[in-house]
């Protein structure tokens, strides 16, 4: 029996797409520590997938691959609902240090007279960055879970309206059960802080869905 012509043509299109694709794509994959206390941090690990890209295109087509790539590179899926609500995203990660960015937005304003963002937004960003700093520190494993014990925040000056806020947190000491983190919120330089904080976290607490 004669093969339908359309099918062969379809194969040709597929091959053309395959040829047009580069050999590998930088794809950011999410680390699978979904059970930790602070879901807000999207810690992504860069991966090169030389085989998967071509393979996925051949098997499922270019459309699927494009959708898959978008899904994998979607940074918002690693942020907690509250983190998403205030527009928080992870900027930079090094060993035990981490930077989070909160873009200026109208709904975050705490003083309508001046347009300065509310202290609670800074609290949220500092708390989140501090938690994430523990999770990127050495010896962290995905089985661990974590809860904030306390946080002390000092506000040095009001945040400047219309300017994005950056928070850098550093986990400077970790024991078996407790992590100590300091964090700075600033606009341009860490030397000119908007707020600083010291927080302690407890690790290894049960993290199971309540009945």
């Amino acid at each position: 029996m004669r093969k339908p012509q359309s099918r062969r043509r379809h194969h040709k299109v597929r091959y053309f797409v395959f040829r047009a694709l580069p050999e590998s794509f930088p794809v950011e994959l999410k680390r699978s520590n979904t059970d930790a206390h602070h879901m807000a941090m999207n810690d992504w690990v860069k991966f090169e997938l030389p085989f998967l890209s071509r393979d996925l295109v051949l098997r499922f087509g270019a459309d699927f691959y494009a959708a898959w790539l978008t899904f994998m590179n979607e940074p918002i899926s690693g942020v907690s609902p509250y983190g998403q609500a205030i527009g928080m995203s992870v900027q930079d990660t090094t060993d035990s240090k981490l930077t989070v960015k909160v873009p200026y937005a109208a709904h975050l304003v705490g003083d309508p007279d001046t347009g300065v963002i509310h202290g609670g937004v800074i609290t949220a960003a500092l708390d989140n960055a501090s938690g994430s700093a523990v999770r990127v520190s050495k010896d962290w494993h995905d089985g661990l879970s974590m809860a904030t014990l306390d946080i002390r925040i000092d506000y040095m000056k009001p945040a400047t309206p219309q300017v994005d806020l950056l928070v850098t947190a550093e986990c400077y000491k970790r024991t078996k059960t407790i992590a100590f983190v300091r964090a700075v919120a600033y606009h341009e330089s860490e030397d000119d802080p908007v707020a600083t904080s010291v927080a302690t976290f407890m690790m290894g607490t049960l993290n199971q869905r309540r009945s």
Partner: protein
Amino acid sequence: MQILKQLREEGRAEDMQALLDHIPYAKFLGVQVDRKGNEVTTILPFDEMLIGNTTLPAIHGGAIGAFLELTSLIQLLFNTQCESLPKTVDVSIDYLRSGRPVETYGRAVVTRQGRRVANVRAEIWQDEFNKPIAASHAHFLLTPV
């Protein structure tokens, strides 16, 4: 526009709900005020957006911090007349229990009020007042009228 001055002129200096309605972040969180006599209780209705830990699920520490700060601020403005909104100097928050996905209530006490600085303690709870989920101690910088 000076919001506190405007409310004072309208004779609504003690109407904390009106003040909250003018603070975009308070509106965004959905914070409400319940006043019985001279007792002010703040209410944070639960919203999916407030979740920080989707596994438990638990309310985000930042949302709890923000609610504590707003509770302190409301109590302070209820007690005193200010020219502009008090500025937070520092906050120290103790997380005592994880916040379950239900309505949260807050109460604050102004422990000491000077001319320029006020000390405020706040506690928030969910089912029982005797089982607070977080407590805070804050200093505010005031601008007296």
